[in-house]
């Protein structure tokens, strides 16, 4: 520990601490411009100068990088220091008269108007003041080394190598983040015309997925994390006191042996940008159901408030049913849950805003216990429920802008009228659909799908949770759209089925099995390599093949391939099939 005085205040700090840090500890403010905790002090703005006094010797040093020394007295605001700071700020103000951070600092130290005029005067408000923060952050934190200075002296400027966009730039935006004047800007490409990467997502590369996550620990998004692109940064590890961050962790594939599997892989929602008439992805304030659900969440990006993109409360909200469902162009099935969640949205929007709410439906399917009652409650709240499929959502013409930024066009099929309703926000009730990867998952488990793309159960009425593959069960929206009570019921049923197997302790197998008639077997071994279950082995002493009946699944491929008809199968012998043939040809 080193003891020193700062402005006659005694401070004790560890060795190698900078004076700036020590002053911070003592509660003394020193102006800085090029300093940042993120990287090594660059020490170029010279605003943080202080006088380090030892005995009669006094030395002007920059506090950001001057390490504390035992017994020195630091003067942070002596007349000499004030004079230096003022002059430096005068020089800066002469060159960049309109940069806010320079103006503010100048005002803080009492400079009104500089004594000088600079011939290199740059009057832009976002002029580069050559503090070098972007260069340091790119070099030391990001370690991409993209930015640097070009030319020297008064001509010095921030530049990319050879003045061209560098391939080494990972577009992390760190430079724009640290730039004190806004000279470096992160230009976000306008999302119009593109599938939006929804702005409600996490803002950092390390985040807690949801507040309800178990275990509730942050995860690193390796695709966005600077460290995984350049090997640099590691700032999270630096601030993590328990040292819990491990960049060495790799995705692992763990093999677990199990006897039964319940496939409950869930669903995707229909991508509404396929229905261009609703303007999803092209118009502001048109949300999918999942996005709106995030907005309503009290831990979400708006803390549960219903807000338009510019942060206002909407004056009216349209909730549009059957997006992609009950539509022969997309999914002909009914997505089942949408009517009820649409009513829930109406309920919540009514609770949280003063907006007028419109529901556009084809048929209102409030089929479950207590659902119809909820529907009636919503009607009582004054939600306008219009029977008719919305034709299109368009941007409001200028004349109608003051009523709503969007216009919903629809035919009210009960009144037989065409409607044009101005609204501020449109919520689309996207259909539930089979997951994008469901075919791959299906093949993995040798299960089938029904025409709607969801996994196929063994029997729609008698066996709705098991599949054609023994030991593989399905539940939830992987099997078909359903609401939470139904999912719980189906999953419980599947679990019960699995438990019954476990408690039984033994497995019954189908009697359909292949076997070898050893007296006909020539020992050619053709069957041995055909079997996908390696159920056929060759008995070396007898020189015949043999089927392990516990492994055999009875597909009969070996039977068909046996050149000497020695291989045959219970229930499907050649004779039986030929007899069948004979029979049906009558």
């Amino acid at each position, binding site marked *: 520990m080193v003891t020193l005085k700062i402005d006659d205040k005694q401070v004790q700090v560890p060795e190698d601490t900078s004076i700036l840090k020590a002053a911070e500890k003592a509660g003394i403010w020193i102006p800085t411009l090029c300093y940042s905790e993120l990287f090594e002090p660059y020490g170029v703005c010279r605003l943080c100068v202080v006088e380090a006094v030892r005995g009669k010797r006094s030395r002007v040093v920059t506090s950001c990088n001057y390490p504390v020394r035992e017994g020195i007295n630091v003067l942070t605001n002596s007349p000499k220091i004030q004079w230096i700071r003022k002059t430096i700020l005068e020089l800066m103000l002469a060159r960049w008269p309109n940069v806010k951070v320079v103006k503010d600092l100048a005002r803080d130290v009492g400079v009104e108007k500089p004594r000088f005029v600079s011939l290199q005067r740059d009057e832009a408000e976002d002029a580069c003041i050559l503090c070098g923060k972007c260069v340091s952050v790119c070099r030391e934190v990001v370690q991409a080394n993209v930015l640097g200075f070009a030319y020297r002296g008064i001509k010095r400027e921030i530049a990319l190598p050879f003045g061209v966009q560098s391939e080494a730039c990972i577009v992390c935006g760190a430079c724009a983040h640290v730039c004190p004047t806004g000279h470096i800007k992160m230009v976000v490409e306008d999302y119009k015309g593109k599938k939006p990467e929804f702005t409600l997502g996490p803002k950092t590369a390390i985040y807690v997925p949801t507040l309800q996550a178990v275990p509730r620990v942050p995860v690193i998004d390796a695709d966005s994390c600077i460290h995984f692109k350049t090997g640099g940064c590691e700032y999270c590890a630096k601030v993590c006191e328990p040292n819990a961050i491990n960049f060495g962790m790799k995705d692992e594939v763990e093999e677990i042996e199990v006897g039964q599997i319940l496939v409950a892989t869930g669903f995707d929602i229909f991508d509404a940008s396929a229905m261009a008439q609703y303007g999803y992805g092209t118009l502001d304030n048109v949300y999918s159901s999942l996005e709106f659900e995030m907005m309503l969440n009290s831990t979400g990006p708006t803390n549960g408030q219903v807000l338009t993109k510019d942060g206002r409360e909407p004056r009216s909200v349209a909730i549009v049913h059957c997006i992609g469902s009950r539509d022969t162009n997309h999914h002909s099935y009914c997505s089942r849950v949408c009517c009820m969640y649409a009513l829930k949205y109406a309920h919540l929007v009514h609770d949280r805003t003063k907006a007028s709410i419109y529901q556009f439906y084809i048929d209102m399917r409030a089929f479950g216990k207590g659902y119809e009652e909820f529907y009636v409650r919503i009607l009582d709240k004054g939600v306008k429920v219009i029977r008719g499929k919305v034709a299109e959502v368009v941007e409001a013409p200028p004349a109608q802008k003051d009523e709503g930024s969007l216009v919903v066009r629809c035919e009210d099929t009960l009144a037989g009228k065409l409607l044009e309703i101005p609204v501020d926000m449109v919520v689309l009730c996207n259909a539930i659909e089979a997951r994008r990867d469901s075919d791959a998952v299906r093949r993995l488990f040798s299960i*089938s799908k029904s025409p709607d793309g969801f996994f196929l159960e063994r029997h729609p009425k008698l066996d709705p949770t098991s599949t054609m593959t023994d030991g593989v069960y399905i539940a939830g929206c992987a099997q078909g759209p359903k609401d939470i009570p139904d999912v719980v019921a189906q999953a419980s049923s599947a679990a019960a089925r699995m438990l019954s197997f476990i408690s039984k302790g033994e497995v019954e197998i189908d009697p359909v099995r292949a076997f070898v008639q050893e007296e006909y077997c020539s020992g050619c071994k053709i069957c041995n390599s055909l079997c996908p279950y390696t159920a056929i082995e060759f008995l070396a002493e007898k020189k015949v093949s043999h089927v392990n009946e516990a492994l055999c699944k009875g597909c009969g491929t070996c039977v068909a391939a046996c050149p000497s008809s020695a291989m045959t199968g219970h229930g499907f012998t050649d004779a039986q099939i030929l007899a069948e043939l004979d029979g049906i040809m009558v």
Partner: protein
Amino acid sequence: MAFEPKIIGFLCNWCSYTGADLAGVSRIKSAPNVRVIRTMCSGRVDPSFILKAFQIGADGVIVMGCHLGDCHYQEGNYKTIRRIPFLKRLVKGFGIDPRRLRLEWVSASEGDRFARIVNEFTEEIRSLGPLKLQVHTELRKTIHEPVEVV
């Protein structure tokens, strides 16, 4: 009376048979000419079954299995896909139009596809006319003498 083709269909238990079932459950109308024999896997279809079917008077044979990669037994249908083209060349040597033999993939969810294929194939056979195959009765007997199952 118009010619009604007799067609033998070998359907795999897991996909095509279920698909055919779905077509029935869905009340999809399809030609009644296909007489279905269920096998556990299309890979179980012994080439001799097909020859036998033609021998005893079938005008066409259709083998249906799961789509490639979907096989319940992992790779049975790959065996089938090797056998059928070979058989087509063989039956040509016997004087049978190879178009009378067909291999199709129908999954459990493709009831409509099943019906479409059946209709299409029936029409094709109908246009080809009856298969007039001279069969030696003795020969028929020797083929028809499989090993009895104990």
